């Protein structure tokens, strides 16, 4: 498998669940910040699902 979700960042706890590590944020700024931090650690890309959830995907 060449693509994999490494982490999920969300504000609303009801929108997320499942196997990948989940990081909760209080607001939009914190959400972007933790997504950026995680993506730089893994060298991965951040994608926005347009519902307040960001996923970090290794391509």
């Amino acid at each position, binding site marked *: 498998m060449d693509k994999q979700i490494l982490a999920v960042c969300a504000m609303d706890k009801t929108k997320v669940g499942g196997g990948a590590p989940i990081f909760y944020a209080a607001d939009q700024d914190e959400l*972007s910040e933790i*997504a*950026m931090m995680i*993506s*730089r650690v*893994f*060298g*991965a*890309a*951040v*994608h*926005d699902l*347009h519902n307040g959830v*960001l*996923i970090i995907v290794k*391509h």
Partner: protein
Amino acid sequence: MKYLFTLIIAILGGFLARLYMLRRDYRQYPSYPQGWAIHLFLGFIGGSIGAIIVPALLEGEYSAVSFLLLAASQFREVRNVERQTLSAMESTEMVKRGTAYIEGIARVFEARNYLAIWVALSVAVTSELLVGLGWWRTAVCGVVGVLLTVVLVRLMQGDKISDIATVELTDFRFEGALVVVGETVMMNVGLPDARKVYEERGLAAIIRPNGPNAKATLANLGQMQAIAHDVSSMIGVYMDVGEQEFIPMVRRNPSVGSLHVLMVASEKDEVAFLEAIRRVPVLEGAIRKPLTSAAGKLVD
């Protein structure tokens, strides 16, 4: 040593032909000086094979000719070595060349050795035909060698993107996190900071194929990757290791067959960006000609 003159001038012809075919351009491949040393020596071997075949034939040494032809088949190994080298270096490239491009380069390097053999063979034949001409023999051999080299190199030159398509600058916009060029979604950029970088420094172009043949050629994934790689190596790319959102994107618009290129260049120079795309070579392995088939003509 009655064939000494023929041997020397033919080997020299093959060697110089290989030297002429080595280019030092933006790709820096083969690398200088080690890569050059390897290919010049192979050119010397190729020239020797082409040169010795003629005296061997004249002397009726047919077993020698067979061995020489066997030696020529060893040049197939050149392609394997080039492929392995480039594949091994692929992980060090910010933007990958892609397997199709690597195959194309490997094929070119193999073919150039055969061209060196052809040049040496022709010079040797000319030299033996003109044995009684004295110094004129040298001049005619030189002319034959140069002419053949130029003609062969010209024939081997492939097309560039500008030969099969028109390239124009175009706009891109963000729909939420999606970068959109025309009606084609290029990628999902999740970070607001990255979107800002795109808005400030991003460049987008549209490559419109000139006909059904060009459309089929541009649809090749290897060709698309080659465009991304070559444009990045020519004008530079604005990214660090691991910043995947800034990898140059080439996407296809399925309704018209055009390609959209989106990248963040290290310098935002629109003219250089377009020129770089126009100069990307069309990969030999990507070329398709649907118009030569009956069904393809019906579709057109």
